[in-house]
């Protein structure tokens, strides 16, 4: 018989068309309506003409035409229902009403929008910054599938590099990764016969690494397996930036040899513009060319790995699989891999941790949310204060049959309209703020993928924030207003009960909450500011302005033996302290403030009571260190050349070390041992004798000075090398002299990151400073918001009570009595808010303790100052409206309605 008709299928496509057409009707509603009217008129005319032709009078024909046509109005109505979207229609009615209302009350609307815009701008700015820093993926094809793999101690969860041998096992055993590569970052000295050497960030990479990233060279070829063969010609790929900056984008560079670390290397290609790896790297060589590359030893941990997840694999699946693989490696090679697991995170997260793992951005986001909350409380108080005027309107609507839900819906729509306007204004404000931040952040050498821009995620966030804000500040007043009913209004003589007790109680709660939050923000800001200042103050123990430090990039192959290294250190110091050079110069393993090595400490005369000894920091220094930094030794002597001689190893400790570990008795002559913190193995089982005590200098970015051991250079392999000089010139001339001096010793050694210790000190405290500055700005905004809110609510409240005030004056109340009556509730809730805020500040300081830096509890003086500030603001905000009330002429006031 018949094939069955799939009616459903036929119908679906037109359904979508109908919706689109109806939506378009919304825009062309008038044209459609006019068209219908014209058609109806033509139709009626044609009908009437027919009837006239049959011999009817014009009048009768017109009537008959109408009868035949049917009810014109009902046709119009049917037509209208077929057009447009009925729900949207209802909204648009409300929307137009709300827009009319809000534009009529310009001052009120502007006030609320400005208040909310401040709160939303703060949130948009912080979100944009956090979004740009932490939630970005590597900008390569399928960047969200690129993972970072490294080794970690399973027990202590501390990360470490991985060995090439482990990496090879990972790569061959894994099924969740379609491709896996390895790399080791390195500072590379790039030189050639025509230009002075540059120190560039680069990396030794496995030959497949760019295939993992799916990035092809823009010019030339990528690495092949042949480049990794023993005896292969040394080759390198250059970044586009360096190729243009250093070589003027010369295409003939491909195939030519330059020098990297003093060795001739052939450039085989240039990567595309905008690509760097892993952070800001611009030069890449195959891992096989890495000095003392050891593919077999599992302890030779120098690499990180990059893997591309297969399209089906999840991060969790990859973690599960790799954990099993690492466990089996650990079982086969217990000597080297005991307790060694794998850590896998999205590639960018390995360098910039996202919140909540990273606490600074989380803290700033919380602070921003608090500002928005204050702004919402503020907006809500303003709405509540205005509610009195609208009570009558609402009652009328309710009496005419509007449901409560419909009234709340309309009021919320008004709130949404205001919060959307605020969101748009907030976006503009934060555009400026974000640009300012981005300019400040240029100094920080952030990874190349970080960009602060308004992407889809930011806009989505703003949209959600606007919606949330509308509900947060609009729901309570809307709910309050919708409760008004005819009886209340009548009983209150037409004045409306909303401005009465119930509304005022809510206003008091909001006010108290607002002030409490403001106090907490102020306290947190003050606390962090103080902390940052304390760190800076600690650093003043050395002459920050005359000391300059630089990192040194030394070709490992050229200076492999300890004797070669010592000779290099000595000639560097000698070259830089020539009569025309610097007053003093010293080589060390790390610059002050920013870096140190962690060890487990053992004391010779104090047996361990716990399984592990305390941890302690150390840096390696040359004998001229304390002299150069101008640190007078507190006890004993500084280090001498002979202090690294076998059997006579000596160290200097700082006074924090003495306080913590040897508070009783003389530290000089006592013996200590430094062990690898991870496996407790003592490097060479050296025992050091303490020969001196120095003042404490911070060696970690965000902590007060801690116990530190200064060991002689050359006893341990040092990953980094730094040089510090005492100069008399400015930053530019010092940098030039320092760079040239280093180059004069060896053209393959480069000094980089040259800066005064003052700048280094500031840079090392950057996050603490950023968070504290942000918090102080937020607290300032909160204060302004609270003051504005207080002022607004107070004057509004007074305006409503004008006739009451007039009456009181008329019956002879004194000014002070009236002021007290008026201010009592405001002051009470302000004081409650203050008390709550001070309590909250203590709690907040406990939370902050350890989150950013080890911090003290806020001092009473600071809290007292904040309390005083708030009282002054409360009084000032109430003063103007109160004075106005005092000057009221009782007769006018009584007539006021």
């Amino acid at each position, binding site marked *: 018989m018949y094939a069955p008709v799939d009616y459903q299928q036929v119908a679906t496509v037109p359904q979508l068309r109908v919706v689109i057409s109806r939506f378009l009707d919304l825009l062309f509603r008038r044209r459609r309506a006019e068209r219908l009217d014209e058609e*109806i008129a033509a139709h009626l005319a044609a009908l009437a003409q027919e009837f006239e032709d049959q011999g009817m009078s014009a009048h009768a024909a017109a009537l008959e035409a109408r009868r035949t046509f049917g009810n014109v109005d009902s046709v119009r109505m049917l037509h209208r229902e077929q057009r447009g979207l009925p729900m949207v229609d209802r909204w648009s009615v409300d929307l137009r009403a709300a827009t009319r209302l809000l534009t009529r009350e310009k001052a009120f609307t502007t006030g609320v929008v400005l208040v909310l815009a401040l709160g939303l701008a703060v949130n948009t700015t912080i979100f944009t910054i956090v979004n740009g820093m932490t939630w970005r993926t590597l900008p390569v094809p399928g960047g969200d599938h690129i993972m970072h793999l490294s080794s970690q101690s399973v027990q202590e969860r501390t990360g470490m590099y991985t060995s090439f041998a482990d990496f090879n096992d990972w790569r061959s055993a894994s099924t969740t990764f379609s491709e896996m590569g390895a790399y080791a970052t390195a500072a590379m000295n790039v030189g050639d016969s025509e230009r002075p050497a540059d120190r560039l960030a680069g990396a030794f990479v496995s030959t497949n690494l760019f295939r993992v990233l799916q990035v092809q060279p823009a010019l030339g070829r990528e690495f092949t397996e042949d480049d990794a063969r023993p005896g292969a010609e040394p080759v390198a790929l250059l970044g586009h930036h360096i190729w243009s900056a250093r070589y003027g984008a010369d295409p003939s560079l491909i195939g030519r040899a330059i020098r990297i670390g003093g060795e001739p290397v052939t450039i085989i290609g240039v990567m595309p513009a905008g690509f760097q790896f892993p952070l800001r790297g611009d030069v890449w060589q195959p891992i096989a060319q890495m000095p003392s590359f050891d593919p077999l030893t599992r302890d030779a941990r120098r690499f990180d790995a990059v893997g591309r997840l297969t399209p089906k694999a999840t991060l969790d699946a990859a973690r599960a699989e790799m954990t099993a693989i690492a466990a089996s490696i650990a079982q086969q090679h217990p000597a080297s891999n005991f307790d060694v697991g794998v850590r896998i995170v999205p590639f960018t997260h390995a360098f910039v941790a996202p919140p909540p793992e990273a606490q600074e951005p989380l803290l700033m986001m919380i602070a921003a949310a608090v500002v928005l909350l204050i702004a919402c409380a503020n907006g809500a108080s303003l709405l509540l204060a205005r509610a009195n005027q609208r009570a009558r309107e609402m009652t009328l609507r309710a009496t005419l049959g509007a449901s409560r839900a419909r009234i709340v819906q309309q009021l919320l729509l008004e709130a949404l309209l205001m919060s959307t306007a605020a969101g748009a204004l907030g976006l503009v404000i934060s555009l400026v703020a974000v640009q300012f931040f981005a300019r400040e952040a240029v100094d920080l050498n952030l990874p190349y993928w970080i960009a602060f821009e308004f992407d889809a995620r930011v806009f989505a966030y703003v949209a959600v924030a606007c919606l949330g804000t509308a509900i947060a500040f609009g729901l309570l007043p809307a709910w309050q207003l919708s409760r008004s009913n005819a009886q209340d209004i009548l009983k209150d003589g037409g004045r409306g009960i909303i401005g009465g007790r119930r509304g005022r109680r809510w206003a008091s709660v909001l006010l108290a909450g607002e002030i409490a939050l403001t106090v907490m923000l102020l306290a947190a800001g003050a606390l962090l500011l103080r902390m940052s200042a304390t760190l800076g103050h600690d650093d003043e123990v050395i002459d920050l302005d005359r000391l300059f430090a630089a990192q040194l990039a030394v070709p490992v192959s050229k200076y492999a033996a300890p004797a070669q290294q010592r000779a290099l250190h000595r000639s560097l110091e000698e070259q830089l302290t020539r009569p025309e050079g610097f007053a003093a110069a010293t080589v060390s393993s790390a610059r002050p403030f920013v870096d140190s090595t962690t060890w487990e400490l053992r004391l010779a005369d104090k047996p361990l009571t716990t399984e592990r000894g305390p941890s302690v920091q150390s840096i390696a220094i040359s004998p001229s260190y304390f002299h150069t930094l101008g640190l007078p030794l507190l006890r004993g002597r500084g280090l001498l050349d002979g202090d690294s001689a076998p059997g006579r190893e000596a160290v200097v400790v700082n006074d924090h070390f003495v306080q913590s570990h040897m508070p009783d008795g003389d530290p000089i002559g006592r013996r200590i041992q430094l062990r690898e913190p991870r496996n407790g193995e003592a490097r060479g089982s050296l025992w050091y004798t303490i020969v001196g005590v120095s003042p404490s200098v911070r060696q970690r970015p965000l902590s007060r000075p801690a116990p530190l051991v200064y060991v002689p250079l050359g006893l341990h392999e040092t990953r980094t090398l730094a040089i510090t000089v005492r100069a008399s010139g400015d930053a530019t001339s010092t940098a030039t002299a320092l760079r040239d001096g280093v180059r004069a010793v060896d053209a393959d050694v480069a000094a980089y990151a040259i800066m005064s210790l003052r700048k280094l000190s500031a840079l090392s405290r950057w996050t603490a400073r950023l968070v504290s500055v942000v918090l102080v700005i937020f607290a300032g905004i909160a204060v302004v918001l609270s003051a504005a809110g207080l002022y607004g609510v107070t004057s509004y409240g007074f305006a409503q009570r004008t006739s009451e005030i007039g009456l009181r004056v008329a019956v002879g109340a004194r000014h002070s009595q009236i002021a007290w009556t008026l201010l009592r509730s405001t002051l009470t809730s302000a004081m409650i808010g203050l008390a709550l805020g001070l309590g909250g500040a203590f709690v907040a300081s406990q939370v902050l303790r350890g989150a950013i830096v080890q911090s003290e509890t806020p001092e009473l003086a600071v809290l007292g100052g904040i309390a005083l500030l708030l009282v002054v603001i409360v009084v000032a905000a109430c003063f103007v409206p109160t004075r106005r009330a005092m000057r009221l002429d009782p007769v006018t006031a009584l007539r006021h309605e």
Partner: protein
Amino acid sequence: MPPAGAEVPYGTLDLMVLKTLASMGPLHGFGIARRIEQIADGWFALNQGTIYPALLRLEQKGWIASEWGTSENNRRARYYSITRAGRKQLATETELWTRTVQMVNRLLENES
């Protein structure tokens, strides 16, 4: 035979409009109403105005298209014509209609 002046059965107006346009070519609203009335021949009463919402509905579904033109008596008029999708729909609906009628007929014959 049904009494004269019964209402047009619900849902059949769209089919009638489509069929009219398919067989007659582009027509204005008045022409379509006139044609359907002629065919109905007094069996059904048509409120002529009701074809306008029907025309809008069909146009929204993309089964007919419309443009301005000039009528026989030189007035501006909206002319409707069936689209390719409309012809397909007409075929489907015709088949559906035929089957429905046959089914109902069979049912009614069995009952009697």
